[in-house]
């Protein structure tokens, strides 16, 4: 090599991997557990810090608690403009000339509006309700509501009503495809959704034969790649979702690399083994609301109008007008995905800088649909950064009918948010198709953790409703009067339709 042409690049490690030889039981479990093959055995575990992604799998499985993973302490001269991440990314791009990839949701410190919204509670004059004693209604119906119902002696009127999904609690699982996540992970989610009476979502990866029994609790997606989409697939789901966009990557298509297209993934997506699965952006048959309407009704015709059709979009600047068009195009559900939503793979620059917060999107879409008198024609599902039952309650108060949880569900399955989903090496067996890794995730145990999560959040939601003095989530829906803002400017308050804290009724 021409030494003059070789420019040494400093690529500092993100993590320090340390190990206490005194405690080490020499079991080599850490070596086996690392999906990234960062640890080797040289008379003791030796980690290559350049390969460590900080997923903590080795640490969690060390029986002696001998391993500690810490952030690499300050190694670069601090600079207010040039953060460590900016410098690290720039060096990597100078070396490779490539687009940076990442996984999960935006990790930049934009203001989190959930944390500037507080909920109302009852005191003295308006009694609260004790959910331990009183029945609480979390049941939610998703879909177009009839303008009027004519009751006749036979059941013909009921049959004319648009199909609705009945969910026992307004907390659903977000769209995550088989391919982006392992079959065991998707199965855990599907089982939990069925047990909890909520919905899961196939994403654009088809419906694996093993998951057909859970189809009656599934949104089956139809997106630009049409992966696994056929007549029986559409009929196997409880609802159909047209995916236009995703919060983590608005305006960007999907791209499952050929390495992840295993035999089973190829069968489920109905594509050849090992080819790239490209979901183009946009859908090249949809350039307008009229075109979208055409696909909505193509899907309704294919399923004899028995399935609600949802349209999923990323929350972007013009989201209110777009959502209005979606409803007028005939969608029964609008799925809003905020810019903090997760992804199996996205260009970092897209994930971190495009789109708007879902809090804003819910408020402006709900308001627009109300102003136009069409709010009852579609339900709103909100996703992209729902972290707790408090976020669920706030989303519903802002105007959502239900929320969908993706990142939270993966956390419940063991994910530690290392953001390396796109590598396919997930040590926790979630975002990988490597059989040695996927078998680490037991779908039955995983589903129990997800069931626990849904049950816990639902119980908390009941507590919140009780404290607010209402006994049905329906009474909270779109009730922005029960929200107050803390530390938000007037413009943002106006957009959210929320008064500042301190202002009474």
């Amino acid at each position, binding site marked *: 090599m021409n030494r003059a042409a070789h420019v040494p690049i400093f690529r500092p490690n993100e993590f320090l991997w340390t190990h206490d030889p005194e405690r080490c039981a020499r079991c080599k479990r850490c070596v086996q557990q690392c999906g990234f093959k960062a640890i080797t055995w040289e008379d003791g575990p030796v980690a290559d810090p350049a390969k460590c992604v900080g997923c903590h799998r080795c640490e969690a499985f060390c029986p002696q608690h001998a391993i500690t993973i810490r952030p690499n302490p300050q190694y670069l001269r601090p600079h207010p403009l040039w953060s460590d991440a900016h410098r690290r990314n720039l060096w*990597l*791009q100078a*070396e*490779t*000339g*490539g*687009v*940076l*990839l990442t996984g999960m949701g935006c990790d930049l410190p934009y203001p989190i509006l959930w944390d500037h919204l507080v909920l109302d509670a009852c005191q003295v004059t308006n009694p609260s309700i004790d959910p331990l004693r009183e029945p609480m209604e979390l049941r939610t119906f998703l879909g177009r509501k009839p303008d009027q119902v004519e009751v006749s002696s036979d059941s013909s009127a009921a049959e004319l009503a648009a199909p609705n999904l009945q969910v026992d609690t307004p907390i659903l699982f977000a769209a995550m495809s088989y391919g982006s996540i392992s079959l065991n992970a998707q199965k855990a989610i599907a089982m939990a959704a069925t047990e909890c009476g909520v919905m899961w979502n196939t994403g654009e990866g088809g419906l694996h034969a093993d998951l057909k029994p859970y189809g009656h609790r599934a949104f089956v997606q*139809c997106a*630009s*790649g*049409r992966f696994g*989409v*056929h*007549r*029986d697939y*559409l009929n196997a789901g409880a609802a159909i979702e047209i995916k236009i966009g995703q919060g983590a990557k608005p305006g960007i298509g999907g*791209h499952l*690399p*050929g390495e992840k297209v295993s035999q089973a993934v190829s069968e489920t997506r*109905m*594509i*050849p083994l*090992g*080819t*790239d699965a*490209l979901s*183009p952006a946009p859908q*090249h*048959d949809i350039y307008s609301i009229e075109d979208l309407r*055409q696909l909505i*009704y*193509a*899907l309704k*015709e*294919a*399923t*004899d109008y028995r399935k609600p059709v949802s349209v999923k979009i990323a929350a972007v600047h013009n989201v209110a007008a777009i959502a209005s068009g979606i409803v007028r195009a005939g969608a029964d559900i609008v799925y809003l995905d905020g810019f903090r939503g997760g992804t199996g793979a996205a*260009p970092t620059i897209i994930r971190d800088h495009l789109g708007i917060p879902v809090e804003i999107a819910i408020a402006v879409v709900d308001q627009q649909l109300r102003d136009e008198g069409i709010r009852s024609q579609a339900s709103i599902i909100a996703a992209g950064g729902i972290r707790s039952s408090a976020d669920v309650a706030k989303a519903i108060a802002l105007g959502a009918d239900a929320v969908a949880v993706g990142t939270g569900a993966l956390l419940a399955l063991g994910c530690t948010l290392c953001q390396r989903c796109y590598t396919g090496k997930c040590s926790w067996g979630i975002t990988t198709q490597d059989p040695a890794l996927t078998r680490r995730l037991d779908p039955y145990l995983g589903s129990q953790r997800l069931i626990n999560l849904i049950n816990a959040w639902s119980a908390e939601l009941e507590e919140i409703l009780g404290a607010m003095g209402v006994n049905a989530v329906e009474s909270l829906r779109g009730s922005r009067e029960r929200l107050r803002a803390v530390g938000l400017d007037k413009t943002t308050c106006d957009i959210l339709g929320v008064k500042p804290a301190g202002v009474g009724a």
Partner: protein
Amino acid sequence: MRIDAANLHYRELNHQVRQAVAAGETSFELVNVNGQRYIADGIQGAVALDVHGVPGNDLGAFMDGPTVTVHGNAQDAAANTMNAGRIIVHGHAGDVLGYGMRGGQLLVRGNVGYRVGIHMKAYRDRFPVLVAGGVAGDFLGEYMAGGALIVLGLGRRPADPLVGDWCGTGMHGGVIYLRGEVDPAYVAARFVAVRPADDSDKELMRPYLKAFASAFKLDAAELLDHHFLRIAPISHRPFGAKYAA
């Protein structure tokens, strides 16, 4: 079964067809069709539909098995995500034909519009084929992932190109055959390679051109005995090297 589609909304027309198919009817004659969308959408099995008039968009969408014969022109998005079956169009057909088509055949006697064969894909024994008797518009075979697109250019004026701009953009599977020559400027050289079709290519085309010839009373040998170009992707992973390691 004969259905007079005059003044029938597509929802009513398609409902009647679905009901009859569910009851075991396998042969339909739809007359006075005038723009009704979604004909044969999601219909499964050995069903034959003869369409007289001009069917609307999304003819045969999600269709899985039937044979549809259109005695007239067809509009946009025919054979959308079609799984199996055959659509025969005796006139011209519009834009976005065969989007995400996974199997079966779409045979068009005349010209086809823009964005034909987007993301067509093959899977196991399924191999979708779209034959255009005339010429095709821009973006033929965009993101194509499998199957075959064949453009014959029959009866075209010398000045008419066989295909429009950006042929094969994003193509990563399947094959396009053009009967005649094409200016290289029309082809997306970043994604595809062009060479003359050889004997094995003609063997691949033979059954489809036979089907085309028999549908439109043409001579298959005459169709095949001609110079063809073969356009195929350079890579099955066109964006593999785009990202930083």
